């Protein structure tokens, strides 16, 4: 592959990633299944950079085998959620603390 077409490929891939990026609003239903309460207004602290953001503000990618949630400030992975076969796998390594209303 020459460098020009390589750059084109990279540009196309970048555009696709940008278009695939959603935000925490998109997983309100999924999070409600897991946490049983409204979660898009919940406030999470990033374990990597310490940024504090409402779930509605985080980056969400759903075109993966699971759902990948990233910090809007440092872009590290906050959560990975996989649902299948009647089970959930929830990796929250990147979330230091999640604060939400009980109602």
């Amino acid at each position, binding site marked *: 592959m020459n460098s020009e077409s390589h750059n084109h490929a990279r540009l196309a891939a970048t555009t696709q990633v*940008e*278009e*695939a*990026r*959603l*935000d*925490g*609003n*998109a*997983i*309100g*239903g*999924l999070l*409600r*299944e897991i946490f*049983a*309460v*409204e*979660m*898009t*207004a919940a406030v999470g602290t990033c374990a990597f950079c310490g940024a504090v953001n*409402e*779930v*509605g*503000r985080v980056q969400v990618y*759903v075109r993966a085998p699971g759902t990948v949630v990233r910090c809007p400030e440092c872009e590290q992975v906050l959560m990975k959620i996989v649902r299948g076969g009647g089970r959930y796998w929830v990796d929250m390594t990147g979330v230091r603390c999640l604060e939400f209303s009980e*109602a």
Partner: protein
Amino acid sequence: MARAAVLGRLAWQFGTLAEVVQETPRVSSLYLDVPDWQGHLAGQHVDVRLTADDGYQAERSYSIASAPDDPRLALTVERLDDGEVSPYLVGELRVGDRLELRGPIGGFFVWRGEDDRPLLLIAGGSGVVPLMAMLRHRANVESTVPARLLFSSRTQADVIYRDELSRLGAAGDGLTVFHALTREKPAGWSGYTRRIDEAMLKEVAWPIQESPAVFICGPTPFVEAASQLLVAMGYEPRSIKTERFGATGGTA
């Protein structure tokens, strides 16, 4: 039921399609009767689930277009030619048919009628839907908070809710509607004919010192461009709430 409500479980339920209103050649509003609908806030969405005969299921999220105080739940859906769900909703679903949904969902991208901050709404295409719920609610509760909607569409024919927005904007209750077209410059058009830029936002947006509440909804590149422009102009990032939808319109 009371215990289920306390636990916050969100059950799938069926609505019945009562009326279809074609908004543009590609966009229709579906008015649904949903028994036991628990009510919603302006800006929330529902998840819709279709199940094929073989058990295959597809889920998508759609913003609620109706105000909390409107008699029926309304979804406004853009038909995407390569979509899995929207061509069924806009085209095949008939009055009297049942539709499986759950909701309302969301608590971040919502506007409450008692919010007294000036309102700035910025919409790209069908991103206008949750913002329309806010404007309908604002009219229903007779809120007079000053409000401005900047609505970017591809062509004049693609402008969703065009007549209703024109009525709402002429009501004299403090709402001004600004349109921008990105792919057409029709003769006699008085709105903008370009993509949203800083000069446009300087004309439309409330001054920073008035601390407006800002809601932006549309395709991801549109939302990020508009919010980045506002932040660069000095608007408080925490006052800007955004909701992105993907190229497929789907989030599930």
